[in-house]
């Protein structure tokens, strides 16, 4: 795989799975607060 493809792979993973992680954590935290 070329260097630029690896950069795009990392970019996509950070945005998509990082975004999913942050939003899920926020939802879990707010649920704990409600409990």
């Amino acid at each position, binding site marked *: *795989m*070329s260097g*630029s*493809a*690896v*950069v*795009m*792979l990392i*970019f*996509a*993973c950070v*945005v*998509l*799975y990082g*975004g*999913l992680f942050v*939003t*899920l954590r*926020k*939802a879990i935290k*707010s*649920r704990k607060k409600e409990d």
Partner: protein
Amino acid sequence: MQRDRWSNRAAFVLAAIGSAAGLGNAWRFPYMAYSNGGGAFLIPYFVALLTAGIPLIVLEFAMGQKTQRGAPGALAKVGRKFEGFGWWAVLSGTIITSYYAGVMAWAWDYLAGSFTLGWAENASDYFYNSVLKISSGPGQLGGFSIPVLIGLVITWIVIYLILRKGAESVGKVVLITVPLPVLLMIILMFRAVTLPGAMEGINYFLEPNFAMLTNLSVWIDAYSQVFFTLSLGFGIMIAYASYMPEDSDIINNALITVFANSGISFLAGIAVFGTLGYMAQTQGVPISEVATAGVGLAFVVYPNAISLLPGGSFVVGFFGFVFFAMLLSLGIDSAFSIVEAGVAALKDKWGGTKRTVTLFYSIFLFVVGLLFATRAGLYWLDIVDHYVNTYGLVVAGLAESIIIGWYYDPDELRGYFNSVSEYQFGSWWNVMIKYVTPIMLVVLLVNELIADIGTQYGGYELKYLIYGGWGGVIGLLLVASFILSRQRGLDDAEV
């Protein structure tokens, strides 16, 4: 009457993810990225998510949750004259489910074929001659293809059983049907990346060609991909959100749905292009010769690639089973969510028990979908799919954004969803709903309209495009939406 309710927030979010993540994530996104600049496509894709996808899905969640109605009822609460656009959205979904179930019928046949390796020798011959028993053109219906008919019956029985208790039964099913395809996709991805040639294939998927970003069609494709992948314009997200209490979170639920859906598409891209890279190397051909999208990818190219896997017939059968089980579990929650959008709209309007409305609506859709189980089904599917996606859904999304942006106070809706949400949206959301989203949807619409007027879609004779497109889809949507919106319903009686 007590409204249907999700058992908890997770059930709603999983159902929304399940609805958004469908067959298109596996067979449309990877090729769309590959043919629009590879990794560079991610930039217009993310811009489209931010400027149209996220604002619209938040709009649909907010409308459903605030009004506690399906799409027609929700739009009628903004103004009685707008109800017809809600029916337009629901009816577009109705048409789509009728053939989407047909595609799932093919997947059942392939799943069964994984035990006999029926598709392994020549997937193209298996698909066209054994499954579809395809005729020479749309005018030659040629009776039913029995394997497709059996698959169609199975699909509708499954959909009815899942939906018969509404949000309660859906909430339980999505606990399985949302994580399962992700797990199966991860299995396929790991198998793919360990094959020779896989990295070359993934390189084709991800290597950026930034020069292509100056091409308008790349941006149009990105907006179209985002719009279709999030199940927008069907009224599904409005119906699903209407089963949440009015004080539930909206923005974070929408963001989780968007990130999960796009994450699934990206994962599919790695699995698909890794496998295609292996196939290209094994056959000694360039990747461009095997890269494709849609039905051809799922039912011809990918099964062919699986049949080339090392390890003998058990391995081929196993990975075939995994792939088609993934397609079925990806597709089933998209299919039943569209049916649910229709059931919610009908129940809101005329009442009735969940089971009865679901049963009759499912039977109706099964009967309509019989056209796609004929030997000419693939031709009709191609025609109807083109017109309902291009005009049905895009017009519905356009109407939603214009109605909320220009005929309703977007500040009021934003005030509502901000007041119940964990994250807050600023006035940029108003700008997106009032200007950016409608402009991009108009560009999509005009672009397709010019293409359709300039050439006859798919090379079909004009009469078939009129039966299955201009008349059968657009004419039907116009007439049926108008008639349904003129009927008196329960909400009118309340007034």
